């Protein structure tokens, strides 16, 4: 049995070695060739393309820093910031008071908000849909559980080549910041989404479904517009003039469903992270906001 125990010992030794190697490197500092300072960036799916574009461009600005971008939704970004598994969280909505409180209590730091750009939420319909403009009120009646509008004919729309008249609502998954913003701005905080609305995992998925479904209507960041869908002008109230989503209307507040995009850090950012955030807010970084289809911050 001496041999048996020595084999068991060897196996145990291997396991321990692996674990020790794992614990040793907790510092997050770079060592050895190819290793670089890393910035972990998690959050909003709406901002995922933008965050990836920043990371891509920053690789050329400062090659000693490597930005790691993950999606999952604004909620996931906030959660990661709370338990310290990311350095900076992307949020397409404001941090909730509960989340901010948890950052204070768990990380003992004050959450710091950075407005990094603006997003106009576009209302998309199929390209054959003749709808020109829609009011936030009517959208609410469509999306709200118990709302009165369920058929296109109710708002005077007939879609050539479509089967039937029912409105197919395209929605997002509930960890999406876009979902929460739309609920707040259109459906109403106290109301629920209509149960028949289709929940899509991703802005691009939502737009693609609309592109393939003549009866559908849905929402996504205006950066996700494709030639296969049409963006509808949006007005605040029935009878008012609809406003097209664009940089100007998003910034001056005339477009009713536009929102700032945030990045949050736990405490004042330092070192490489501070440099990264400053670069994002610089003209170079804001150019990327524009080129990915969002609205840059107004020049100071």
């Amino acid at each position, binding site marked *: 049995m001496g041999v048996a125990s020595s084999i068991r010992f060897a196996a145990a030794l*291997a396991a321990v070695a692996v674990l020790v190697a794992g614990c040793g490197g907790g510092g997050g500092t770079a060592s050895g060739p190819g290793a670089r300072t890393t910035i972990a960036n998690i959050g909003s799916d709406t901002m995922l393309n933008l965050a990836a574009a920043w990371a891509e461009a920053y690789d050329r600005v400062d090659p000693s820093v*490597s930005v790691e*971008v993950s*999606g999952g939704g604004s909620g996931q970004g906030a959660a990661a910031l709370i338990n310290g598994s990311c350095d900076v969280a992307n949020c397409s909505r404001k941090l909730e008071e509960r989340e901010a409180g948890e950052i204070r209590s768990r990380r003992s730091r004050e959450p710091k908000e950075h407005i990094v750009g603006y997003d106009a939420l576009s209302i998309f319909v199929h390209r054959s849909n003749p709808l020109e403009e829609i009011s936030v009120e009517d959208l609410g009646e469509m999306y709200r559980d118990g709302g009165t509008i369920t058929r296109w004919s109710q708002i005077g729309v007939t879609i050539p080549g479509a089967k039937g008249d029912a409105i197919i609502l395209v929605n997002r998954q509930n960890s999406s910041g876009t979902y929460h913003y739309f609920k707040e701005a259109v459906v109403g905080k106290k109301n629920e989404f209509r149960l028949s609305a289709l929940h899509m995992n991703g802005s691009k998925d939502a737009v693609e479904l609309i592109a393939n479904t003549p009866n559908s209507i849905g929402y996504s960041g205006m950066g996700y517009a494709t030639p296969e869908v049409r963006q509808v002008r949006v007005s605040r109230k029935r009878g008012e003039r609809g406003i097209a989503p664009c940089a100007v209307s998003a910034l001056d507040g005339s477009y009713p469903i536009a929102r700032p995009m945030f990045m949050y850090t736990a405490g004042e950012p330092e070192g490489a992270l501070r440099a990264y955030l400053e670069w994002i807010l610089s003209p170079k970084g804001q150019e990327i906001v524009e080129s990915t289809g969002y609205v840059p911050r107004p020049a100071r």
Partner: protein
Amino acid sequence: MFTATPQVRRKARTEAAARTFFALMAAAMVVPLLAIVGYVVYRGWPVLSWTFLTTNPTHGGTQGGIWSALVGTIYVVFLSLAISAPIGVLAAVYLNEYAKDTWFTRVVNLAVVNLAGVPSIVHGLFGVGAFVYFLNVNGGKKSILAAALTLAVMTLPVIVASTKEALASVPVAFREACWNVGATRWQTIRRIVLPNSISGILTGVILQVSRTAGETAPVMLTGVTTWKMIEQTGLFLYHPITDQCMALSMHLYYIQTQASGAPKALPFAIAAVLIGAVLVVNAASIAVRVALRSRRKW
């Protein structure tokens, strides 16, 4: 003289029909594989090239290549196998060669079987809790090592099972002959059992490459990120402990669900590379197995 009676001919017809039917069923196995590989390669062909493999993605993944994802997959897969293969093989040697049928071995065997049945997303959640937060592998952040450890836990039971099977295929008479000339258990394992089962053991381990390379859920939660640029050349492109990495499976998911404006061929090209890499590894394992078999004398 023999002449075919109607009865004989009828039998022959039935025989032919049965054979054809079974052969068709066997052929049906090949159809989905060929269809998948063929369709994926056909759709992805316009994008596939050497530069596609060796350049980082650009323009939010809609252009450029898949370098960082390809390297990331290689890192995660091999690191996880480097952890799980030694432990799994040694555990299987103990269970098959040393252990008597006691409550302890029964518990271990039961654990192995049940661990193999745990869904991969559950492994992912376990990995987040155990490796990312509890062991704090990278200061509470996701890391390549945490992902590799998670995948190692996932592949361990399968490696144990396949290794045990390979060991059990070595006839008991071989061991008895060896013991009878005075060899110890360890000498028997070292000289007789392992050399005769090594091809089977390797096959079992290498088959896990395809499994780990394809997993998305467990690594997405523990160490794989959507976007990270790495250098084009060099030996240590990722730091296994402090870095997260991209992976082909996750990149495929990202391109398909998030990246707008990507060419339609791109997801298929990524899938083709994933399948291709796995096929290459499997082919290598077959070559090794054939080479080892040819040395076997029974």
